């Protein structure tokens, strides 16, 4: 029964999710270790955003809202949207509900790039650039390997991704092994666990630009992503070159994932569980699934980040929280959807 209702009202539901996301972003501005009154937050936002006024360190509420929380909330939201979009797309492209953005070696590549930059003592933007570059290299190597094997199927790409991912993971271990235990290892460990604590407006721009390009690109292709449920011959009869489409779609996914890893380190499970939740709400059709997944991903990651920075006396790396919450949620979803099949339409 519920399923019919959601199908019928998928569009409305997606708009409600967007409204919830906006509301949570506003509420999150009030959360944190430094207690701020709502009027102070409003004063800071109106003062800065409407009158373009700067602030001084001595205006602590201004520093907390404008310099610490606002860029962080924007970054978390966009990363959540991007990761969920990437996950929903990958599951559609590979016709496999267990697939996440990690399978094509992008996350491992980006992680290695980031860790190498930390080892070399580079500044934060250097870490972002290296993570981004290595994420793209990871995908490229996976594609080249699949091509060398003479196969262009999704299975060949997944296997190549696993090989490249494992290869990068080994180098990641090696880099940690040789890191200075006093000065470099804590930073590397913290970065790999995932955290948005170092959010800056520069990083927001990177993630926003990637989400604008790749996220909107995926949304424009949302009808065509449905065609991956057909075989190549049927798709060709409809005038679509599936392989070319796959390349374009995966390139968008890489852009989303690499931009996220580069700014915040490893944050797992979002791209895996959110598409399942969204599918339960709006059904498997990608024109409805993608926007719903995106907004739900933003809500989920923002909730996790709010918890990470306020539930304990010291910040908990968000990658740990998404893992702790994600695995049982995925187990429940897996158990619930097994009887129906993952598409359950």
């Amino acid at each position, binding site marked *: 029964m519920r399923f019919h209702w959601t199908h019928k009202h998928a569009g409305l539901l*997606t708009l409600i999710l967007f409204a919830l996301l906006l509301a949570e972003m506003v509420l999150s501005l009030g959360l944190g270790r430094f207690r701020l009154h709502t009027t102070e937050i409003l004063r800071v936002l109106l003062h800065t955003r409407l009158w373009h006024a700067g602030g001084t360190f001595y205006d602590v509420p201004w520093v907390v809202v404008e310099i610490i929380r606002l860029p962080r909330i924007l970054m978390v939201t966009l990363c959540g949207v991007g990761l969920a979009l990437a996950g929903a797309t990958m599951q559609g492209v590979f016709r496999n509900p267990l697939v996440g953005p990690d399978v094509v070696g992008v996350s491992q590549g980006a992680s290695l790039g980031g860790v190498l930059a930390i080892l070399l003592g580079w500044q934060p933007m250097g870490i972002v650039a290296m993570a981004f570059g290595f994420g793209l290299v990871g995908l490229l190597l996976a594609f080249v390997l699949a091509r060398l094997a003479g196969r262009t199927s999704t299975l060949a790409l997944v296997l190549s991704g696993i090989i490249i991912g494992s290869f990068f993971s080994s180098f990641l271990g090696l880099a940690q092994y*040789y890191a200075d235990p*006093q000065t470099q290892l804590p930073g590397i460990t913290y970065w790999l666990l995932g955290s948005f604590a170092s959010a800056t407006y520069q990083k*927001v721009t990177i993630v926003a630009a990637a989400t604008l390009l790749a996220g*909107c690109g995926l949304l424009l292709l949302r009808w065509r992503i449905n065609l991956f449920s057909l075989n190549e011959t049927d798709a060709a009869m409809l005038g679509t070159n599936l392989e070319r489409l796959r390349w374009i779609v995966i390139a968008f996914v890489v852009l989303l994932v690499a931009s996220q890893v580069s700014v915040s380190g490893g944050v797992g499970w979002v791209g895996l569980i959110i598409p399942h939740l969204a599918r339960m709400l709006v059904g498997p059709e990608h*024109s409805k699934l993608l926007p719903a997944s995106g*907004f739900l991903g933003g809500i989920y990651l923002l909730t996790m980040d709010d918890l990470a920075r306020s539930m304990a006396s010291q910040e908990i790396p968000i990658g740990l929280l998404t893992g702790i919450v994600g695995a049982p949620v995925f187990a429940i979803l897996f158990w619930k959807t097994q009887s129906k099949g993952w598409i359950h339409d």
Partner: protein
Amino acid sequence: MMSSKPNSFLQNTAELLSSLLLGLLCVAAIVVSAAPPTVRPPAREAAVFPAHRAVVLPVILSAYTTINGGSQNLLAVSNVAREWGSYGLLGKVYPGTERLPVVGRMIIPEPEQLLKVHPDALFVHKQQAEVLRKIGMPGLVEVNFMPRDARKSRQSLWQLVGRATMQGPRVMQLLNWDAAQRRQLAGQLGGIPAAHRPRVLLVHAGRGMWSVPGGYYAMGSSIEEAGGTNLAANFRLNGQINLEQIIALDPDILLLDPNVMMSPYASSHDVSPRDIYNMPECSVLRAVKERRVYELPQHSYTNDAIEDPLLLAWMAEIFHPELPRQLRGVYRAAYQQIYGFALSEDDIDRAIFFNENLPSAGYERFRRGAEQ
């Protein structure tokens, strides 16, 4: 097959709107971040010296309390700084260190927590300072202590802490004491020919793993300075070593380092000399046959202007048993002179791991009352 066409006008509009909203969200984020607000630097940006409300995040607390004469001006520290700042005898000298409030895990700063604490001097590792620089946090004191370059960076660290606590003369006094102790030791060891230098290997042992602190760590040069030959001098990196390599090196003396901070692969006190003697696979080692396996005394890596000379005195007597038995006296005098603290005999026993090392050759020389 799934339908790829919109069901109705409303449905289609809602979907289109969703895509537009996502785009709008991204554009809004770009617009907001395109002209980021900048923090206008406060009138007095530098740290206020002497610091009355200091926060220490890096693992330099032992140096700070030694120079400052205690933890009285400290508001809070990181968990790792507190752990290592109250380790060993220093925890007895300055018991307040153990009760200092904690403001961050590891050495990563948490801006909101630090804003709440509002220190007038905030010691932070240079590599982790970016997040605080961007909020214009005043009073930042950036520390660039690199263990691989310990001697040089230690001196600049001590001078930095000396400036922050306005204890420059005390820093000079401590550094002079350190230099005098080293000179005295060099004089004692001057006549020992190179052939009589024992071949020494320093390892971290635990959880079935062995690792060596690479040759560039300060401890390697301490072995040389105390009249030994460092077998790990050519191991550039800090890392794992297997038993076969240790057998191949076959050291005269095997030193076990209880300081796990220098090795992520071994835990402190997992393995004592007694355990090594009981391991059948180690029985072929010369150091085991001659019972010359020792656990290093307690020490921290950023208080080495005090603890390095004590460690050197210990090593020299271990490497060259013909030297006079002075160690207990050296410990007592150093703590009295530098901290005004009278060490008990039990304190010294604990610091030099007397009971743990007793099964090893010649350790009886360190028994209380055995001094010359």
